[in-house]
């Protein structure tokens, strides 16, 4: 079985990449099937570390991609109004008291759904992206993001929560951008949402860390989906 326990080191990224490559062909995102004891607290810590790593990676990626989109998207003061349209990705923005009151399950599920969607849209960027270097960077980021999704799934499994159903497909009625500029605008907001989610997830997992005692060890064997 795949051993996903262990210290977060350079080797783990390789494992994640392999995992991503293997699972990219599956129609639905699977649940983790672990025979190893996986402390929920440990998983949460690793997921937290992953969000920080991705946030760091995103800074470089976003800079490169926005330069590819060109002005005004790559200007630091660029502050466009949010066009009223169907939200592609669930927004990270939330009322403070609501966020505080989220159950662990709801918190994890919100993260899981958001990143699944974000991953799907990011993958769509890979094709038309300009240079080979940009495509490579996007691809690498997508792999890491896939790892994050799986990590969150792992945490949910180890805590006994069911994974949210529904594939990461575009919701019905999403308008297709009509022109090049609007398409670029959508890309811009996608990156913004991704950045905001990563920063929110750090706080989400901080909160989870406090609520789930690190010594909890759970043995969960779940086979689902295949």
């Amino acid at each position, binding site marked *: 079985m795949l051993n996903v326990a262990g210290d977060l080191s350079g080797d783990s990224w390789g494992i994640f990449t392999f995992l991503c490559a293997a699972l990219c062909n599956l129609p639905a995102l699977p649940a983790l099937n672990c025979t190893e004891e996986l402390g929920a607290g440990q998983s949460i810590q690793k997921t937290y570390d992953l969000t920080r790593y991705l946030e760091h990676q995103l800074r470089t990626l976003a800079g490169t991609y926005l330069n590819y989109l060109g002005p005004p998207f790559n200007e630091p003061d660029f502050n466009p109004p949010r066009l009223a349209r169907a939200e592609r990705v669930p927004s990270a*923005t939330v009322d403070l008291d609501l966020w505080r009151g989220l159950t662990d399950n709801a918190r994890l599920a919100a993260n899981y759904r958001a990143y699944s969607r974000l991953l799907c849209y990011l993958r769509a960027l890979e094709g038309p992206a300009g240079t080979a270097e940009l495509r490579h960077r996007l691809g690498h980021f997508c792999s890491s993001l896939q790892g994050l999704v799986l990590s969150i799934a792992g945490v949910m499994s180890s805590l006994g929560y069911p994974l949210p159903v529904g594939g990461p497909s575009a919701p019905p009625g999403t308008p297709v951008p009509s022109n090049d500029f609007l398409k670029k605008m959508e890309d811009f907001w996608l990156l913004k949402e991704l950045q905001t989610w990563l920063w929110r997830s750090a706080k989400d997992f901080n909160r989870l860390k406090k609520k789930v005692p690190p010594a909890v060890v759970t043995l969960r064997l779940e086979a689902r989906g295949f």
Partner: protein
Amino acid sequence: MRWSVRRQLPAGKQPSALLVPSLGKGEGFLEAGGLRSRPGAKMANPVPSACCVVLAAVVVVYAQRHSQQESHIQYERVGADVTMKCGSMDWDAAVTWMANGTDIDASHLNGSYLILKNVNLTQSGQYSCYEGSSWHLKYQTHLRVGTPPKEPLLMCRSNNYPKGFYCSWHLPTPTYIPNSFNISVIHGTREMVCEKDVFPKNRCHIRYLQLFSTVKYKVTLTVTNALGKNSTTATFDEFAIVKPDPPESVVAKPVPNNPRRLEVSWQNPSSWPDPESFPLKFFLRYRPLILDQWQHVELSDGTSHTITDAYAGKEYIIQVAAKDNDIGTWSDWSVAVHATPWTEEPKHLTTEAQVTETTSASTSSFMPPPTTKICDKGAVVGSGAVAVCWTAGLVLAAYGVLFI
């Protein structure tokens, strides 16, 4: 007899007390004095003329007082040319101008107009114009010389995340005249209200309605005074302005029987509302007073730390800073605390057997104070005694190897 004096009141206001001169007939009321006429009584002859005299005197006094202009304030730019007219007096009237009670000589006058060229700040004050012969005050004004406002400096910061943030501002150079500030905060399509603080005055605060927003906040500050206006705008993301206050109650204590240790503890800043959900990480820096270079330690949790490589007997200066674990910037450094590691009492000679740490090869390169002669653990001694220390250390190491 009923007395009354009509007083002119501002338009629109109803007189609350009307005293109208009357000669015994009609409505009236009692004035202080207790005069009361019997209805229908006949007035004596000298009384009506006395009435008239008094009435005339009252009217004259009133007219004189009322002929003065209301004192008002005039704002002018530094370097401008100011012309003051003496109220409604003609150009060729004979007048005297005074500035703050001092006569102004006629060279500044053009007829009855006062001309001040290229005014500077020292010329602010009260200017009065008196009619030449009667010395009646015809016109009075306060001249305030100042400048229009330069672009203000605006700073916004969240030291109480996730509750909200505050913005504070000031002018880079004084204008010398009163200024008013207006601040507006726009978040996406919504305009938020920034509540002004009582103290300090140039500050207002906002509560976050939502967290983790993708839309930036745009704060515009406009400063206006009688001579002009100016404004500045700051645009930022919610997480970019997070900067906690420095840690509080920093305490550094020596550790008994450990000449190289200092125990430092501190508390979360009291303005940080929720350290449980939004934990802080800390940065500690310390150095002996006699050195310039700081040593740094970053701590991801906990509010205490033990320094284990302090130079024995040296006074240390220690500071701590805080930062949200994930976002924002470091706080300013805390108040500095001083501490000296524990040192032995001078009369007790440390025996070699008690030395547990023989690694006295510290990385220091400075000259130690001449008083430290005892070769106890961790102490850096004068060059003459180093050889003795090393020998002692080697001997001890040899014993240790033999007996263990």
